[in-house]
């Protein structure tokens, strides 16, 4: 009996609704219909009045959550797709994110963002928004890559007093399976060494962790290279200590992400490693991201837009041959 990443998200919400009367869910089509991805399937029947359909009003959905949080609730808002959170951007970064610093009163909202690309989804149902939100002070941005993290980090997100952007990767929803939701108990803010290695470090997060591990296995079989893979888990706060410790062991860094290339998490990782760990590096650090175009619709274009095990291997070969 195995469980999936989307099961983890649904189960975590059921757990939260059962254990904490302050929790409620708000989003489009999430009540009787169970959500576009069925992340809330059956929950409105189990918890009447606490799983609520929203109008197509992302700004007001976020604003509503903020007001509810100020009244002591712990809302979880489902954006139908991360892409649509751009409409809620103002409420998230200007209202929720500034509130604790300005007034001393935190805004504990959790925004669930179904993120990242899947074949055929196109420019407006494929985006990775973590960089945009991480730029703003006061926001916590988490990017779970495993079934256990999807479960535990959603529960932890709701318990945090700060606004959390919970980026759940759609590609992992049904593909990623585990025996249970039980994990290693790492808290938000700590990265994980997913795969040990000694020749180069790949720092990544979300679905790209799995692509990095595939690339690492391929290089090991092909030529015996031992690649370490660091899963950031949360991109803000960013656990740069774990990254630096890994680079200290390997001397080589590839920062890998599925988001657009300009700026972003991978640029932040490289900038911090260069600033704080320049002496550790045996080669110029590299970045590998999606291409600098909108996410294309056709599966052949989409597959070439985002990093793949092949392109990750190519980058690593260059990094290792420097």
């Amino acid at each position, binding site marked *: 009996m195995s469980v999936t990443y989307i099961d983890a998200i649904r189960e975590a919400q059921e757990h939260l609704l059962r254990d904490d009367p302050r929790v409620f869910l708000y989003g489009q089509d999430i009540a009787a219909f169970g959500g576009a991805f069925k992340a809330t399937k059956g929950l409105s029947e189990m918890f009447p009045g606490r799983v609520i359909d929203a109008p197509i009003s992302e*700004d007001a959905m976020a604003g509503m959550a903020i007001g509810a949080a100020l009244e002591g609730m712990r809302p979880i808002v489902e954006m139908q797709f991360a892409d649509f959170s751009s409409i809620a951007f103002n409420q998230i970064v200007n209202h929720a*994110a*500034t509130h604790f610093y300005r007034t001393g009163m935190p805004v504990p909202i959790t925004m669930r963002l179904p993120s990242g690309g899947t074949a055929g989804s196109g420019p407006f149902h494929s985006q990775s928004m973590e960089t945009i939100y991480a730029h703003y002070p006061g926001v916590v941005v988490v990017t779970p890559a495993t079934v256990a993290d999807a479960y535990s980090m959603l529960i932890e997100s709701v318990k945090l007093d700060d606004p959390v952007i919970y980026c759940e990767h759609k590609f992992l929803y049904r593909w990623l399976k585990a025996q249970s939701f039980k994990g290693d108990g790492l808290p938000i803010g700590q990265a994980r060494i997913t795969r040990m290695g000694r020749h180069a470090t790949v720092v990544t997060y979300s679905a790209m962790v799995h692509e990095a591990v595939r690339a690492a296995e391929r290089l090991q079989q092909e030529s015996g290279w031992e690649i370490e893979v660091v899963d950031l888990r949360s991109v803000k706060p960013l656990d740069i200590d774990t990254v630096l410790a890994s680079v200290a062991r390997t001397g080589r860094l590839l920062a890998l992400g599925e988001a657009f290339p300009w700026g972003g998490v991978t640029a932040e990782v490289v900038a911090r490693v260069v600033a704080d760990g320049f002496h550790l590096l045996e080669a110029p650090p590299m970045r590998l991201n999606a291409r600098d175009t909108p996410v294309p619709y056709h599966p052949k274009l989409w597959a070439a837009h985002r990093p793949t095990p092949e392109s990750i291997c190519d980058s690593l070969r260059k990094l290792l041959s420097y």
Partner: protein
Amino acid sequence: MTENEGSNNQKSGADYVRAMFAAMITARVLENKLSSLYKAGKIVGGVYLGKGQEAVSAALGAALIPGKDIFAPLIRDQAGRTAFGEPLIDCARAYLGSALGPMRGRDGNIHRGRPLEGMLAMISHLGSAVSVVAGALFAKRLKGELLGCVGATCVGDGATSTGAFHEGLNLAAVEKLPLIVIIADNQFAYSTPTSSQYACHDLVDRAKGYGVAGHSVDGTDFLACAAVIGDAVKRARDGDGPQLIVAKLLRLSGHGEHDDGSYVPAEIKQSHYGRDCLDVAEMQLLEYGILTKEVIASMREIAATDVQAAVAQAQQEPTPDPYQEVWHAWSTERFYSENS
């Protein structure tokens, strides 16, 4: 917030209009002082006044119950804030940059609030408070505490053009929340006249489209404001759902004190809506025998003394110290080791 109300009921009748008028006088005295301080270079940042909008704002603030209701004031709501019970020192501290008080120099002027006590701290993005107040009411409903509560916010004619206003009011309508939204249609959004802001005959016509109750009021008419706004708040409190009130008036200052408002044509200033609601209020209160000239004079003196005391206190207080500042925007302290 002060506990002086001591009541769980909305004020009515003479008590209500007296509370309104007291707040209006205090707000006007305070705002005149702020204007002088601004011109003397004593205030860092902008000064935004509610001159001409006091009757509307105070009618709302005085109809709300502190400690129970939610109020999200906007930039021209000094009178409403005072009527709702905001201490004058909050305003003085925010404008004069005191390190004390709720905002501690981290935000200024009209962005102050006491969210823990139901008075929200506005952001500059217009219309964005509508859904937030709706959310607070929604939470009260989930907690079983909504009965007899209302939430209210104020916007100008300009904010009605935002998506946030539309989304927020529609959400409140769908959920049938006891939300009062007052549109102070003051004829100019900064310098833009309403002819460039909306094309409908009257903004109150939109109430029908949202499926909410709509009310119109002459915002310069003190007693009309008391009647219409007081009644709308009561209707919301009694379960009649969202209430949209459109108050026609004229802003009697620039957008801020940096702006002389020279784009407002003289004929508009001399029109009916160019009259000062404070003058109208005094006339009406005397006419109906609610207050005497002596009482009004003494209210003015008390307001002047209170304002002077608040400003003097804030001026003596320490300003924020960048070396002592906690430069973190998270409340979760274990994240503070992150050196971002």
